């Protein structure tokens, strides 16, 4: 988090604690503004002003408040909750208020103690700055003045900050600098360094938003194939515990073709973050071959960490995402889980004794959710550049019931809905995305891309798969009553084809080295192979071959092994030709 310093204007005044109740502290005589950061009590715990009523200021505290007592001082920084922006955020792991967890471990050991603050980026570290402007050039907000090799995969662009007036470059430096050092001076008297600060609750400015037309390729068959997400799009993954929200989010973080990934563990398990910290450095981005961590920023505010910081962590994350968007990158942000953020809002709201809305959530729940998802999009950034933020939010509905407020309010906003299903998860059909309930409103606008880049009949084959699955759903209802053998042969065959769609196409094992990532070409070829089986099988049926003979050919079950086969192209060719021969021989 930003090392907020006291403003010299003298408007800020220190106050005293009047009462303490969990993460909520009330102070008196504190001359603070809404959302100012304050330091609470003798230990100086970080907090944020969330309500002002006469002389009483209510503060949400980002650390445990045990033993904090009325009468202790509250110090105002006079600055809103902000993040530090600059090189060094990638390959980092932060808590909900951007304190680097590795630095905290160094300072206080394995357990998170209180009252320790640390800047979000290393202020001492020197970076190699290469200017891209010369003296005499005119620059304005958002213009690139130089670059810094931030990680192996990402070139960090140093921008004129949004608030600057801009002007003519008077001097520019080159070489190794700390982030706060001035690298460019303008005739307006303004200076530019590699460091910026930005209040988390405010979206960074852009010029315009466009309709997204490029997919965020996820490497997940059901997602790319049936319910694609756009770069700059929004998606929700709701599901009960154990249905696969986290595994899906992690797969997206590993395999999607974003330039930058911001992964927020909001109020979830500690070990899940540890897993990411352990695994990512050893994994490669399949799109670039570079280490995954070098494009990733992690934010971990686990369920046992202070609840107020759970409320702020999504804002910290999206602000960091916006900063890289401003550089012209495609950023993907995963928030696991947005329900914990909503619950943190509810918890704080109830301590404020606000009038509760539906299920105790504050009345502003819907507004906060839509403000957040609005920060996603495909943007014309300042400085004549395009960049995008795709947001994928996990939702954890109580009892798995999607009619609850967080799921419902989220669904009103997002355009892609990946509905997880406990029943599928129980039978270990993963990803347990229910294909009857899920949807993507981006499908039509993304089809041209898939048709251009992957296969010209992409949309047609997909439609065939969807129709077959729909037909299966209808037939299954009849089977539940009379059994499969009572169906006419063609319908039995449809069920068999649909089974392969489920097992060979929709299922994808995120824990299998090869299967975990399915490039769009493979996704398409698997769909195509099943369609070949379908076409050949129905031809055989028409020629009078009994259905048992058709379904018992040994080439068909091999369809289920394509996913886990690395050299899938020859394998698929062989299966298709075997299917043709084995069925052709029968008539």
């Amino acid at each position, binding site marked *: 988090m930003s090392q907020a310093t006291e403003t010299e204007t003298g408007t800020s005044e220190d106050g005293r604690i*009047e009462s303490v109740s969990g993460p909520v502290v009330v102070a008196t005589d504190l001359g603070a503004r809404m959302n100012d950061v304050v330091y609470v009590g003798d230990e100086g715990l970080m907090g944020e002003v969330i309500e002002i009523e006469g002389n009483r200021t209510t503060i949400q505290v980002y650390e445990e408040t*045990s033993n904090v007592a009325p009468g202790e001082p509250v110090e105002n920084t006079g600055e809103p909750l902000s993040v530090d922006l600059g090189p060094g955020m990638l390959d980092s*792991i932060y808590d909900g208020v951007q304190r680097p967890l590795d630095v905290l471990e160094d300072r206080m050991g394995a357990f998170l103690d209180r009252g320790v603050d640390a800047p979000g980026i290393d202020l001492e570290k020197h970076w190699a700055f290469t200017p891209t402007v010369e003296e005499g050039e005119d620059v304005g907000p958002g213009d690139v003045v130089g670059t810094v090799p931030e990680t192996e995969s990402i070139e960090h662009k140093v921008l004129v900050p949004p608030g600057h007036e801009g002007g003519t470059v008077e001097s520019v430096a080159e070489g190794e600098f700390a982030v706060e050092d001035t690298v460019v001076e303008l005739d307006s008297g303004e200076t530019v360094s590699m460091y910026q600060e930005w209040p988390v609750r405010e979206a960074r400015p852009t010029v315009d938003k466009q309709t997204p037309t490029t997919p965020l390729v996820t490497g997940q068959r059901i997602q790319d194939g049936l319910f694609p997400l756009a770069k700059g799009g929004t998606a929700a993954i709701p599901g009960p515990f154990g249905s696969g929200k986290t595994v899906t989010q992690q797969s997206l973080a590993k395999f999607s073709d974003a330039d930058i990934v911001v992964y927020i563990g909001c109020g979830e398990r500690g070990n899940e973050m540890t897993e990411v910290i352990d695994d990512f450095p050893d994994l490669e981005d399949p799109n670039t071959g570079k280490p995954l961590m070098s494009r990733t920023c992690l934010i971990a505010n686990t369920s046992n960490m202070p*609840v107020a910081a759970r409320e702020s962590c999504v804002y910290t994350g999206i602000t960091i995402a916006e900063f890289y968007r401003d550089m012209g990158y495609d950023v993907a942000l995963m928030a696991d889980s947005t329900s914990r953020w909503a619950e943190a809002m509810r918890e704080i709201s109830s301590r404020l004794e606000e009038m509760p809305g539906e299920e105790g959530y504050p009345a502003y729940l819907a507004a906060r959710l839509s403000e957040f998802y609005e920060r996603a999009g495909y943007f014309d950034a300042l400085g004549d550049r395009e960049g995008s933020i795709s947001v994928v939010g996990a939702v954890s509905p109580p009892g798995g019931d999607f009619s609850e407020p967080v799921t419902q309010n989220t669904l009103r906003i997002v355009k892609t809905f990946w509905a997880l299903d406990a029943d599928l998860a129980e039978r270990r059909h993963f990803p347990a995305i229910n294909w009857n309930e899920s949807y993507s409103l981006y499908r039509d606008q993304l089809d041209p891309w898939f048709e251009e880049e992957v296969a010209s009949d992409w949309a047609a084959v997909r439609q065939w798969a969807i129709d077959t699955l729909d037909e299966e759903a209808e037939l299954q209802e009849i089977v539940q009553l009379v059994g499969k053998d009572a169906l006419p042969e063609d319908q039995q065959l449809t069920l068999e084809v649909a089974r392969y769609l489920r097992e060979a196409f929709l299922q994808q094992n995120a824990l299998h080295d090869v299967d975990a990532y399915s490039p769009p070409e493979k996704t398409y070829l698997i769909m195509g192979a099943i369609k070949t089986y379908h076409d050949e099988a129905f031809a055989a049926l028409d020629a009078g071959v009994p259905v048992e003979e058709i379904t018992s050919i040994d080439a068909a079950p091999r369809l289920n092994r394509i996913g886990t086969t690395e050299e899938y192209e020859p394998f698929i060719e062989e299966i298709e030709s075997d299917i043709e021969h084995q069925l052709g021989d029968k008539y």
Partner: protein
Amino acid sequence: MKEYQTIEEVSGPLVFVEIDEPVGYDEIVEIETSAGETLRGQVLESSEEFVAIQVFEGTTGIDREASVRFLGETLKMPVTEDLLGRVLDGSGQPIDGGPEIVPDERQDIVGAAINPFAREYPEEFIQAGVSAIDGMNTLVRGQKLPIFSGSGLPHNDLALQIARQATVPEEDEGSGEDDGDGSEFAVIFGAMGITAEESNEFLADFERTGALERSVVFANLADDPAVERTITPRLALTTAEYLAFEKGYHVLVILTDMTNYCEALREIGAAREEVPGRRGYPGYMYTDLAQLYERAGRIKGREGSVTQIPILTMPGDDDTHPIPDLTGYITEGQIMMDRNLNSQGIAPPINVLPSLSRLMDDGIGEGLTREDHGDVSDQLYAAYAEGEDLRDLVNIVGREALSERDNLYLDLADRFESEFVQQGYDTNRDVGETLDIGWELLSTLPRTELNRVDEEHIETYYREDVDTGVAGESENESEGSADADEAAAD
């Protein structure tokens, strides 16, 4: 230390006191009643003139004359290795008549959160000796894996079986087989609101097996104060963390019954007139439970580990009830007990379908358990689920109307319950045995059905000698019931 006689209000488990010097949030309070009894409590809300106190032992006997002392610190647990072998009440006072406990340290019972950066990812296989767990929902060191049960189901028998049998295979080498002392775990047992009978069952078993020497028991029983239940698990976990992270023990913490703990939270919330969340439980129950469950784990560079097996009884056997629901959202899976299986005599009556171990994947496989483990488990899941589905259909159309393939799956589902899950509470199966039973079942299906198993493993383990179809059926039925008889005889 200032003493007040300014109690303004007593309401349920809460006492409101007027004060004139500031008191810290969460601070410990002693209240002396006019009858001379000393009760302990904790500050729930602190303002300049008033504090709200939650009294652990309940407020019975408190009147406005009672005197209130603020101890100036938060609740601490006196910890030492000497706690091993001791039985304490739900507030941490010895009740076994043993010597006074001389603490090594006094630790805050609200444990600080482990920095996720400092955690070591848990991946050491614990062999519970129970097929439904080892084979299908493997437990690892440092995991939190609750048992979701219902009233009257044998969750205690299962918990005890795990406590008795749990071993970490590689480290077990050299130690004699079947010496009845396979576990190298220190066991912390935290009882909240269970009956004296249940508690005795645990203690008797600990004594019988000699486990008591490496156990610490915290017992808050059904007739002990309800509010005390909110601190019992914290005392237990503080002790566990100390033994694990400072003394290098591998600690297994059994907490039972979490449902009683949550009821106590609800009672306090109601007394404070808080806006209730779902079904009257406090809105912060997720956070509160997370502060217990997340205290399981491993830490980089430290020897020991804290593994948690919390037990909860689902009200109305409903897994969407807030207690199991919020628990499942925090824990690393769940073991689900099933009333139907129980009435069929399956012991332990674990329904593997809704059960899950999220940490299984990294704890199993080549070099850890066996290379075919993951595939066998996946395939058994899929096959059992398919057989389960068909049972409904059979009731409508009868077996004859089903295809041959369907019949194979139906048989497999039956045998899975009667041979794989069924084992009784005294049988300790090693993981190889468990997987072999799995292969015996899978081999009743044609090879081509095993689409989740690597072809190499099919080559190695698929058994051609296994009967499929009708002949196998009757044979297995008798085998299954023999097992059940054996278990019943225990």
